[in-house]
């Protein structure tokens, strides 16, 4: 970090040189998504953390793009807001062209890939891992422009804790209720084990032939009585610390 010097003489003013993203400040944690029998669904909690502080507990990390796509973001929240501005402009371009063409999830996924990879190549990334979902499509783009598509996807801690659950329980013919329950289970486990997670969540879906919808946030039921949460540190009371 270079130093600022201040002088009343404007001709002697100095500014810091332009800098690049080094680390994120306000961050969201996991996003989990899956395909089910009638469409696709995304889920995420409504927390944005300020380091270790649970600062913003009503952050909306899943949003609709146009009518037929939903996107969930983890990582730096301000970069997600910037991405949403860009995508909303892109959606408006479609309207302005007035040629009947509407961007679908697949093309938005590819568009984001191009943007994320370009920023990475300039060593100034948008610090997000994104999940894009739409009719028959579920894709991932991360801060360095990696992409993949799959039947279920998770970012952050979700890739460690939710994916094994999904691998075990996912089927291609899940009903909407089953899909919802499966996502809630994943986010519940994440709340138990991810220090930067919250039990207040949103679920968004794009059902076949319908527009994307994001639910209002709601709280997950949790149960801390389980034996797994009892700590037995050498028979001492407490957690082994002092």
């Amino acid at each position, binding site marked *: 970090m270079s130093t600022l010097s201040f002088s009343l003489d404007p001709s002697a003013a100095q500014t810091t040189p332009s800098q690049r993203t080094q680390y994120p400040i306000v961050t969201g944690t996991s996003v989990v998504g899956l395909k089910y029998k009638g469409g696709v669904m995304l889920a995420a909690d409504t927390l944005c953390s300020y380091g270790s502080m649970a600062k913003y507990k009503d952050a909306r990390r899943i949003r609709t793009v146009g009518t037929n796509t939903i996107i969930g973001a983890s990582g730096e929240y301000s970069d997600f807001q910037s991405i949403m501005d860009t995508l909303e402009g892109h959606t408006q371009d479609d309207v302005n*062209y007035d*040629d*009947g*063409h509407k*961007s*679908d999830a697949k*093309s938005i996924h*590819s*568009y984001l890939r191009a943007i994320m990879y370009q920023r990475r190549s300039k060593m100034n990334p948008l610090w997000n891992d994104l999940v894009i979902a739409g009719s028959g499509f579920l894709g991932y783009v991360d801060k360095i422009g990696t992409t993949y598509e799959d039947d279920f996807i998770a970012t952050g801690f979700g890739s460690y804790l939710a994916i094994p659950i999904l691998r075990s329980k996912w089927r291609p013919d899940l009903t909407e209720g089953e899909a919802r329950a499966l996502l809630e289970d994943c986010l519940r486990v994440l709340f138990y084990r991810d220090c930067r997670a919250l039990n207040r969540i949103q679920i968004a879906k794009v059902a076949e032939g319908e527009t994307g919808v994001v639910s209002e946030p709601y709280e997950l039921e949790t149960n801390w009585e389980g034996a797994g949460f009892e700590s037995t540190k050498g028979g001492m009371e407490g957690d082994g610390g002092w």
Partner: protein
Amino acid sequence: MFRNQYDTDVTVWSPEGRLLQVEYAMESVKQGSACVGLRSSNYVVIGALKRSVNEMSSHQKKIMEIDSHMGIAIAGLTADARSLAKWMRNECLNHKYVYGESMPSKRLCDDLADRHQRTTQTYVRRPYGVGLLVGAYDEATGPHLYQTCPSGNVYEYFATSIGARSQSAKTYLEKHYEGFDNTEKDELIMHALRALSGCVQGDGELNKDNGSIAVVGKDQKFILIENDELSVYLDKLDVEGGNGEGEGEGGNDGDAMEES
């Protein structure tokens, strides 16, 4: 058409409210050899009569692929057409790279029209002296056929033709276009050839050297049908007895050096 003092600059209006330079550019298109285009609910077929300077030379290429879902047939200044084709190909590739999908054809043609228009409103350039028939198939909206003009107008058509003696083709297409929607691919090609055969000069006939057809559509990437592959269709045409019925205008074909 009046030759007068208002026709040397594209930025000068004539007293009748016309841009004569643009109209002269459109004359250039009319001098090029004929192109036809037609579509059904699943396919677009474009066809062209290839001109050759003399017996020793090759026939000028008239149809160019833009992308796997789009191609053009050209009439007028070939060099201008190649410049436009290069731009169109670039746009299609860029779109595919960024959005992972084929360029929507109407969008490209609107931008193409803007490109044409710009040349009609600036001092230092001249209008493009070429007309294009753009045939494309969009996954979302189906097959499309567009005609571009040096003036910057771009219109969509069910069927149309441009170039020398194209009125014969237009008449044929007007008579038959209402049935095109449900026409099969091969029959659509035959329609194109029948329309084209009316545009041949004098005693000439449509043959595998001077005929050129391209098809694009549902489950059909853009494909050029020429020479021996075209013979299959031309033979059918001969059986029908539909070949060699040119308008018989005879005479000069215009400046065949630059134009095709």
